[in-house]
């Protein structure tokens, strides 16, 4: 019962991420919605399934998958954010601190 409740909570978090990806206006906000919410959602689903299954082998596999997801999801999100910035889909704003723009050419190529 606890496992099923945790799985449902995680599925709802994944759905929230999906709604954010479908509705947010640009690439960085979509990636923000995806990376945070699906990391937590998938982790909660996997923990719920680890409570729900019986075999010890399955429990360790689920926890390994959760640990790998927690390790790799922020790295992948960072790579995609960098790449989509470099491919100039992000509008350049002068009123914020922009760590990725080079000092030589203040406006990145459009």
């Amino acid at each position: 019962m606890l496992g099923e409740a945790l799985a449902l909570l995680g599925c709802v978090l994944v759905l929230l991420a999906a709604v954010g990806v479908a509705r947010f206006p640009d690439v960085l906000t979509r990636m923000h919605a995806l990376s945070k919410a699906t990391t937590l959602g998938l982790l909660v689903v996997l923990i719920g399934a680890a409570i729900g299954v019986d075999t010890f082998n399955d429990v360790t596999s689920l926890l390994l998958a959760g640990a790998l997801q927690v390790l790799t999801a922020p790295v992948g999100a960072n790579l995609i954010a960098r790449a989509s910035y470099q491919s100039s889909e992000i509008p350049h704003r002068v009123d914020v601190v922009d760590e990725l723009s080079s000092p030589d050419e203040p406006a990145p190529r459009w």
Partner: protein
Amino acid sequence: MIELCYVVLTLAALCFSYRLLRGPSLSDRVISIDGLLVVMMSTIAVHAMDTGRGSFIPVIVVLTLVGFLSTAVVARFVEAGGA
């Protein structure tokens, strides 16, 4: 409650598929494919808990690694000005 999990995951997959078809840039499509992989992994976990058979659980580990690898490779491709 398990059936509700399947319904919620289906709705999430529909939202990600909408962004996959609609997304203006390649990065949007990579993001939505990443989301679809998360939906697949969650579905496998829920299905294993539903039926009590853990035959497909190692697929979750493989999907995690393949998803990270494909994201990294496509990020390098986009950053090199490929698309």
